[in-house]
């Protein structure tokens, strides 16, 4: 089961991520699917990360935490946040298939970031809704 995004859809996704997140000071943002594929990736040009490895680990990490949630009787933990000294990572589930990951520094408050991420997620849901694969668990 494969799925496809065309130029128009990808441009729309990039516009949303740029306006809501990159232009508001986020260092790096990427949209991935739960298999670990990168759908789109934007950054402010300051740092280059190994995004393919990051996506693979992020999808695995999110999957592991979701499995933990089920064990304690929660359906899911829809967002995760890892705090570092200079860099922080925020994960937000968009649907059963897609995940938004943001890397940001200490100059942005977590509350502001969460608000901006939530706004992006609402818009991304509309773009991604037509292609949620029905046959891939």
């Amino acid at each position, binding site marked *: 089961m*494969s799925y*496809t995004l065309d*130029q128009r859809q*990808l441009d729309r996704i990039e516009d949303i991520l740029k306006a809501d997140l990159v232009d508001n000071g986020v260092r790096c943002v990427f949209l991935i699917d739960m*298999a670990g594929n*990168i759908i789109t990736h934007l950054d402010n040009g300051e740092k280059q990360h190994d995004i393919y490895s990051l996506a*693979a680990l992020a999808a695995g990490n999110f*999957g592991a935490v979701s499995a933990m949630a089920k064990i304690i009787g929660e359906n899911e933990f829809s967002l995760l946040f890892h705090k570092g000294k200079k860099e922080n990572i925020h994960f937000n589930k968009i649907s059963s298939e897609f995940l938004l990951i943001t890397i940001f520094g200490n100059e942005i408050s977590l509350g502001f970031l969460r608000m901006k991420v939530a706004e992006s997620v609402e818009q991304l849901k509309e773009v991604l809704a037509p292609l949620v694969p029905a046959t891939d668990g």
Partner: protein
Amino acid sequence: MAFINLKNKIIQVKIVYYGPGRGGKTTNLEYIHRRFQERIHAEMVTVKTHGDRTLFFDFLPFDIGLIHGYRIKVQLYTVPGQPKYNATRKLVLRGVDGIVFVADSMAICRESNMQSLKNLQENLAAYRKSLESVPWVLQYNKIDLAEQGIPVLSVEQLERDLNRGYGRPSFPASALKGVNVAATLKKILSLAVTSIRDEMM
């Protein structure tokens, strides 16, 4: 679940190396990483236990060039082979486009090979997939141990145990020495890419 990016003309393909614990899945990836160093620029990511066993997965991304005008980005994963890590094995299988089942040819591993294949079938079912529907190949690893007098299963026996009813391509191999590692990878990539292309048509 390959992702096809029409804007940048990129297809991302996920290949998972599956099989019993200590069968040589990680060794396959390590060999590929060494052998194709000039083409694989990324580092291999491993999530290991203190005892150096795979805890979550190993991950190796690389580019295999253009096919029908699309850049193919391959992502190789292994799973932890030990029975107790089934939850993580299942997670890694999510969205898989092709599987290499690495069986251990040592005679003492006969049962664990068959159990692992059964476990693979069960885990695929969770994603509404099956060994009948997903591209996969077999690798009979450690075949060279016979030279050291260690009892190994014959290829015929391994075929009967693991490939009966499936008739998938299979490769006697030595992941440590690199025998048939590239051939196995080439075959699964060709099957996975063909399957994705057929879906796109």
